[in-house]
C-alpha cells in the first residue's frame, strides 16, 4: 500500500522579490503516509504548501501528483480538486452555514445534485463530529469547530492528499485537541496527509516521517524516533530541544 509516491516535489524554488524563500526543496509523499513538516517560522513551510497546489506559482522545480506534472498542468482547477487544503485561519466562507461550506465544492465544482451533495456533506460533518452544528454560521462556531468544518470541506471533495497549513496555530490551547484528534483519525484511516505544524506531540505520535526545514532548505528528514532521539544535524537537535523545553515533551 505504501509504495508508489503520490506526491513528488523536486527542487522547488521560490523567491519573493529579493528574498529567496524556497531554495530547492525535494521530497516524496507516499500513498497513505502522513508527513509532518516542522521548522522555525518564516522558513518557507507555508510557501511550500502553497506552491504544491499552485496557489503560489513556484519559480523553478517540479511537482508531480501521481504521474502528472502539475507545475505545468493546463487545468489547475481540476488538479486542485484532488488536493485538499486546510488553512491556518480556517478560510470558511462566512456567508454560508457549516453544511453549505462543505457542500459548495460539491455543487459548484463537482456539479453534484443538491441532495446528493447534502448527504455527502452531512456524512463528512458527522465524521468530524459536527452534525448538530450543520446549520450554524462560522461566526457561531468556536475556533476548533471552524477548523473541523474546514477539514470536512476538504474531505468532501474526496481528495487524494490533504495539505494542512498550521491547522492549530490560530486556536486556543484547549481547542487544539479536538482538531488533532480528527486529524489523527484521518491519518489512521489511510488518508495521505502533508502537515505543517508546531505540534510536536502530533508529529511524534501520528507522522510516518518528519521533515525539518530551515531557511528554505530541508535540513533533515526521517522517522519521528530518529529525529527526536538521534538527529544527525546539530540544528535539528537545537530546535527540537527548544520545543521540548517549551512544551515539556522530552522523555
Amino acid at each position, binding site marked *: 500500500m505504501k509504495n508508489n509516491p503520490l506526491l513528488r516535489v523536486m527542487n522547488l524554488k521560490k523567491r519573493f522579490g529579493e528574498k529567496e524563500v524556497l531554495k530547492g526543496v525535494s521530497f516524496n509523499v507516499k500513498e497513505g503516509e502522513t508527513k509532518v513538516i516542522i521548522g522555525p517560522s518564516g522558513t518557507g513551510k507555508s510557501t511550500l504548501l502553497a506552491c504544491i*497546489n499552485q*496557489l503560489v506559482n513556484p519559480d523553478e522545480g517540479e511537482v508531480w501528483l501521481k504521474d502528472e506534472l502539475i507545475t505545468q498542468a493546463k487545468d489547475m*482547477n*481540476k*488538479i*486542485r*480538486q484532488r*488536493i*485538499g*487544503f486546510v*488553512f491556518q*485561519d*480556517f*478560510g*470558511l*466562507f*462566512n*456567508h454560508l452555514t457549516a453544511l453549505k461550506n462543505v457542500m*459548495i*465544492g460539491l455543487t*459548484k*465544482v463537482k456539479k453534484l445534485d443538491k441532495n446528493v451533495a447534502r448527504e455527502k456533506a452531512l456524512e463528512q460533518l458527522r465524521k468530524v463530529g459536527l452534525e448538530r452544528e450543520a446549520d*450554524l*454560521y*462560522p*461566526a*457561531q462556531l468556536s475556533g476548533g469547530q471552524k477548523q473541523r468544518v474546514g477539514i470536512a*470541506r*476538504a474531505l468532501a*471533495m474526496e481528495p487524494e492528499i490533504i495539505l494542512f497549513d498550521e491547522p492549530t496555530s490560530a486556536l486556543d490551547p484547549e481547542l487544539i485537541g479536538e482538531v488533532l484528534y480528527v486529524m489523527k483519525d484521518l491519518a489512521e484511516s489511510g488518508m495521505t496527509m502533508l502537515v505543517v505544524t508546531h505540534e510536536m506531540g502530533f508529529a511524534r505520535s501520528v507522522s510516518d516521517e518528519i521533515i525539518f526545514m530551515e531557511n528554505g532548505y530541508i535540513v533533515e528528514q526521517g522517522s519521528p524516533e530518529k529525529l527526536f532521539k538521534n538527529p544527525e544535524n546539530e540544528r535539528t537537535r537545537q530546535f527540537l530541544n527548544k520545543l521540548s523545553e517549551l512544551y515539556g515533551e522530552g522523555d
Partner: protein
Amino acid sequence: MGLGLAIALPLSFGQVYGGKVFKAFVIVYERIFRSIPELVILFLIFYGFPRAGIRFSPFTAVILGLGIRSAAYQSQIFRGAIESISATQMRAARSLGMTKFQGFRYVVLPQAFRIALPPWANEFTIVLKDSSLAYALGVTELLRQGGYIISTSYEPMLIYLTIAAIYFVITFAVNRSLKKLEEFFSVPGFELKESIR
C-alpha cells in the same frame, strides 16, 4: 441609479482585479466626478455636449449626469466592500478547484454585497433627492410640477410642503424596503458592527 450601478460595478471590479491602466483610469474618473457639484456636471453635459455636436434632451442629460457621478461614489462603495473580504476567502475557493470567476461569484460577491448594502442604500436616497436638480435644466420633475400648480393656486407653502412630503415618503419607502432586503440577507457575522471593524 440604474445607470450609476451599471457603470459602477465594472469600475469597482476593474479597480480590484484590473490592470494598472484601468486602475489609474478609475482613480481619475472618481477624483473628477466626486469633486464637481452635481449641478455643474448637469450644466456641463447639457450645454457642453452640443458644442461637440451631441445633443441630449434635458431628461437624458439629467440621467447621464446623475448616473456618472453616482457611479463614482458607488464604485467606491463596492471596491471597499470587495476589499474588505479577506484574501483567504478567495484562496479557499481556489483550493476547492473553483475558477477565479467562480470564487468571485459564489464566495466574494455574496459577502461584499451584504457589506455594501447599507452604504448603497444611503447613496440611493442621495441620488433620489438630487433628481430635484433636474429643475435647473427645465425637466418637469416634482419641483417644477409644483411650480405650475403654485402659479394657478397661489398656495406656495402648501405645495412646497406637499413636495417635501412626497420626497419624504418615497425616500422613506425606499429605505424601508432596502432595510428589509438587508434583513432578508442577514447572516450572523455580517452585522453592521462587523463590517465596520
